[in-house]
């Protein structure tokens, strides 16, 4: 599975992004990511409604997540305010991974 992720803006106006093949991740991380994706329930059709939702307030991060596997490509965009509760832990995880990758560059 191929993942492309970005987390942009926020109070500190960050610009974080990466793309990886999940096979490249250490097994432990790969497992954790799979679990978080399961929790996020990304195939739930109600998520597609959120993608176009207007973000409320100010200083929220904007997240873009593209997932490609053999069968299909899925694209999601969320902000801190529009992301559904189930997806937030996954976004936390991906954002921290993005920071880790950027700092290791």
């Amino acid at each position, binding site marked *: 599975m191929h993942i492309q992720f970005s987390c*942009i*803006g*926020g*109070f*500190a*106006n*960050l*610009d974080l992004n990466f793309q990886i093949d999940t096979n490249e991740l250490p097994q432990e991380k790969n497992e954790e990511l799979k679990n978080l994706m399961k929790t996020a329930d990304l195939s739930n059709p109600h998520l597609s409604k959120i993608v176009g939702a207007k*973000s*409320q*307030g*100010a*200083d*929220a*991060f904007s997240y873009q997540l593209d997932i490609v596997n053999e069968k299909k490509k899925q694209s999601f965009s969320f902000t*801190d*305010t529009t992301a559904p*509760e189930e997806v*937030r*832990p996954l976004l*936390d*995880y991906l*954002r*921290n991974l993005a*920071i880790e990758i*950027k*700092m290791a*560059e």
Partner: protein
Amino acid sequence: MHKKDCSKMKCQCFIVPNYILENLAQNEVEAARISIAKSRQVRRRRIMKEYDINGVVALTDAGSERKGESARHVYDCKGGTKLRQNEARKEGDRSSGDSVVNHAYDYSGVVRDYFKDVLHRNSIDNEGLDLILNVHYGDKFTNAYWDGDEMVFGDGDGVIFSNFANSLDVIGHELTHGVTQFTSGLEYEGQSGALNEHLSDVFGVTIKQFHLKQSAQEADWLIGADIMGPTLKGQALRSMKAPGTAFDNKLMGKDMQPDHMKNFYRGEQDNHGVHINSGIPNKAFYLVSMEIGTDKAALIWFNAMQNLFATANFNQFVQIVLKAAQKLVDSGEVTDTAIRTIEDAFKAVGLPE
């Protein structure tokens, strides 16, 4: 250049609509009406969220449509992403064992009291809306935001950023987003979005200077200096004195805020640069404060804030600030040299265009 929805007959791009400038009294009545309507909306939304969270409509003060007492409620998310879960300290409670909870409580009190005592505004909605602050949100969450009803603060990653709630200017900044929502409702996009950010930075630093009893000359004019992690001491997120010089590090890259219209950011990131182009009016506010004092500059900006409208651009902002300053000169609250000072400060950053 005209915006696409702007006919030449009724150009909205440069000139402030007349109903705003010429009919201020009427406008203030209208603003008050809108503010009350918005206040009801937030109170209802808060109840709806309560319903989502608990499955029952809790009988909290959030449900009341009476004037509130701008009571503080600090919630501990305990690393989770649900809001308003565990109330850690509410108005009048004794100090908590958690210093982050205490900072959120104390600093939001300083901000609320500044708006009330100095600017005579009764909380975010001017109707005493309660202040809701969520701390320890998420896992190493490197952000703080205003979600339209309440404030949310992350712990930071511990390397680049420390806790976002441990800073008076950050809490002042977020709470001011609430005030903006209830006054002009500046759209969070492009120039109006950069003005929204600018106003939050203005009151963030102003309240910090007021609290520390610093003059414009003594202050550092930095936003977010207190939340930079141990390896980045001395850096900050924004500098109003010297936009573009606040940080230079591996995670964030180099500060790209312009301090002049000639370097205006035209890219689409960050809602077309709301945290970037705010450097331009930020610098102008700094220059004005150095001449007439931050307290007087903030008074003028606060008055301007209430006469702004949702789609205001930089040029229109300059006009409205000057108009607000003239009113304060007429009432004797500000000396008449302020007008020239403001014109010169905006000119120094290339405004009006």
